[in-house]
């Protein structure tokens, strides 16, 4: 035996595109076009956030949303975030500040060119729906300085510390919507608040939400027909980017649901960027956002090992719908309030742990993984506690990797691969042991 040996290059497989993917691409492209044309069409632009987004209300005022986090992550995926972050740091933002924020500030400093190359319009309204992430407040304080004179509407969501949404909380929020948010939206848009119009959008939202829940529940099947994290972030794209409450979103999710159901019926494995997965070997539940700058490489580390994510907390960042909550046309403002209150980042650690525990058990996961984001406080705080608690309760292999949202400097491929290799081998050992026990 000698140590040196040549290595063969891996085969490259063609990219598979399903109809839902094409549909989504068109939807987002239309939205960017509408934003670019906002000045000519006279439509007012609202800058707001994904968690606690009031899409239906924005639609009721016929305004257009801009989501800075989505722009940032798209810049990250298109490998353009590094320069924007550097510019924001030169401007004075610290190395430790959320990289979504710095990407957004960098974008402003560079003429507000969006990730698709189109120039984004400045905001007519800053709608700050605060749902547990303190950085959101500081972010909008920065935007207020960058866009002097633009009105800000703040919707404060009380933290659900005890895991129970109380009537007082809902009432407090409805009052803010009625007294603070809606009047400002009326003033900016020049339209009257029309509750019946809002109700129509809320009805459509509930329809999409039903479908989303069914899509993400498809991972109960073994093998799972989808990856609920790496593909899941695409699936939640439309609902998180302002389409919740539109007929287009319902159509998209109906199409996606059909495709996913078909895959499940046929016992097929998830589609990866290199085609259908050969074999599902490990089922994972993942906590924390993905890394966007190396998204494909990151995903490949999983699908190369046959690892499929069957549930993730991150895909609930724009709303938790699997425990029965739906937007309700009969109780418009109240349901918007309840929606904000139950957003993932607004939930207490015990509630998050319970959610993850249910997911691990219900979706028969072999292991639990945390991707801890260097610059994301709202996700990272308490993650070690979550991990240890789940390890103790369920006696399953757990692992912890570290990366960042859109700062490529914090993605260390070798470190992540080394930890994941160990994690996969730990799960493999477990499975082998379980098989031995079964046989004997």
């Amino acid at each position, binding site marked *: *035996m*000698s*140590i*040196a*040996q040549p290595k063969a290059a891996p085969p490259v497989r063609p990219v598979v595109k399903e109809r839902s993917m094409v549909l989504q691409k068109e939807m987002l492209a239309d939205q960017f076009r509408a934003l670019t044309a906002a000045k000519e069409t006279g439509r007012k632009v609202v800058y707001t956030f994904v968690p606690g987004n009031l899409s239906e209300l924005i639609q009721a005022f016929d305004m257009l949303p801009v989501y800075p986090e989505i722009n940032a992550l798209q810049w990250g995926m298109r490998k353009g975030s590094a320069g924007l972050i550097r510019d924001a740091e030169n401007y004075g933002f610290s190395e430790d500040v959320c990289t979504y924020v710095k990407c957004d500030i960098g974008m402003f400093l560079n003429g507000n060119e969006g990730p698709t190359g189109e120039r984004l319009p400045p905001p007519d309204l800053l709608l700050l729906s605060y749902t547990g992430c303190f950085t959101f407040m500081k972010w909008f304080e920065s935007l207020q300085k960058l866009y002097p004179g633009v009105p800000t509407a703040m919707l404060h969501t009380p933290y659900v510390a005890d895991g129970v949404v109380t009537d007082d909380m809902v009432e407090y929020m409805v009052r803010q919507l009625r007294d603070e948010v809606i009047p400002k939206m009326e003033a900016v848009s020049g339209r009257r608040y029309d509750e019946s119009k809002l109700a129509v959008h809320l009805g459509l939202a509930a329809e999409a939400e039903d479908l989303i829940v069914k899509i993400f529940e498809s991972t109960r099947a073994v093998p799972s027909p989808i990856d609920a994290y790496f593909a899941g972030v695409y699936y939640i794209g439309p609902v998180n980017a302002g389409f919740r409450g539109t007929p287009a979103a319902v159509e998209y999710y109906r199409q996606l649901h059909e495709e996913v159901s078909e895959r499940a019926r046929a016992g097929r494995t998830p589609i990866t960027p290199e085609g259908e997965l050969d074999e599902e070997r490990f089922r994972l539940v993942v906590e924390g956002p993905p890394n966007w700058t190396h998204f494909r490489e990151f995903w490949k580390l999983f699908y190369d090992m046959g690892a499929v994510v069957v549930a993730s907390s991150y895909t609930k960042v724009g709303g938790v719908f699997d425990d029965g909550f739906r937007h309700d046309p009969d109780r418009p403002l109240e349901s918007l309030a309840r929606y904000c209150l139950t957003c993932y980042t607004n939930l207490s650690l015990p509630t998050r742990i319970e959610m993850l525990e249910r997911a691990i058990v219900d979706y028969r996961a072999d292991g639990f993984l945390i991707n801890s984001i260097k610059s994301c406080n709202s996700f990272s705080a308490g993650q*070690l506690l979550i*991990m*240890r608690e789940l*390890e103790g309760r369920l*006696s399953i*292999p*757990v*692992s*912890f990797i*570290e990366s960042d949202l859109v700062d490529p400097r914090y993605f*260390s491929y070798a*470190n992540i691969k*080394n*930890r994941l*290799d*160990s994690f996969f*081998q*730990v799960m493999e*050992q*477990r499975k082998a*042991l379980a098989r031995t026990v079964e046989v004997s």
Partner: protein
Amino acid sequence: MNKFYLGIDLGSTTSKAIIVNQNDEIIGRGITNTRANYEVAAEIARLEAIYDARFALMKRSMHAEIEASPELARYISDLEEVFRYLEFRTRAYRLNRQMADTTATYFAPERQPSILAALGTVFAQVIADVKTQYLQSALGAKSQFFRDIFFEQYNARVAELGSGYYDPMMTLFDKSITPVENEIIPFDFVALVHEAMEVLREKYAELADRPPSRASSFDPELDLLMGNVARAGDPIRRYIDRIAEQEIPIANMVGTGYGRALLPFPKECIRSEILCHAYGAHACFPETRTVLDIGGQDTKAIQVDAQGLVTSFQMNDRCAAGCGRYLGYIADELGITLNELGTTALASQQDATICSTCTVFAGAELRELQNLGVPRADILGGLHKAIVTRAMSLLARSGGVRNEFTFTGGVARNPAVLKYLDAAEETP
């Protein structure tokens, strides 16, 4: 037919290989410094382990003879030492050739003769010095790696040449060692063993010729060997040829360490070092539930279950603070060997407070404390304590110490780290 198993750990700092027999006994060990060419490092470690295994097998098959004449065991140990010296010498000759080539390509023609002459002198001295060290088994706790053994003597001898030679001679070494280290140098095991026996014969004969008063201490085995010089090799010669020819068929193998993916092993034979440390700790101490591994470049806290399977782990792989490399750097800063570091620290009377375990800043803090007149032992005491504090925080992140605790990795050989770890374990 006997079956053997090969394990290779291609680590960030050292590459280790072991040969295990079918009774789960380690019969051969090999270690070398990891270098740019991982495959060469792994191959050198593997060959060392195989040679080591051959000597071990030889001792086993000579069991009856050794029982009858116990001094034979001593003879075989001495033989191994000489064998290692001859391996060293083969590599050194190769390095010498490389240094001559470097001289020809790197230095101006008018300087070449003087450099070559100096190289000739120094090289002969280095070989003689190292031979003495091996023959007297005097390497002790020093590094056993070719690069280090050669350089220690080379550095000392170059210093004797006068300051004008220092820069060119160091450049010569720096430019020549890397290609030599990254090359497999073939050895003829049988020929080297025969030569080693010849060298040993000379050694014992020379010792026997000396007046008894010069023998350093009473050593009955050596006395016997000296008296039986001519005969000592005879029973061995029969075995040597058999063992040297003996194949060590590898029935299965496992590869681990940072460079494991580069090993030409089947995929299912590659295991993460986290699993290996956990399983190894479990094999030695079945009640182990927590493993701390401080290696050359990272620290790991591993939780393991009753079957030796990993349940979770935490790693510090972004920063080499407190790892083997950090200790190596500190030792260099103080001009002592890595192995002297821990023993010096044990003499600490009052541990200095060390704030930074960062390898990059370590030199600065060290010198500031030296400027303040803090004794070296106290500085080192504080430094080892700081390493342990850092390791403890990683352990805490991973859920703390559960039941029995096993400490692995190169840094586990450092007595001062053990001392402070013991103390930290006792403090709740």
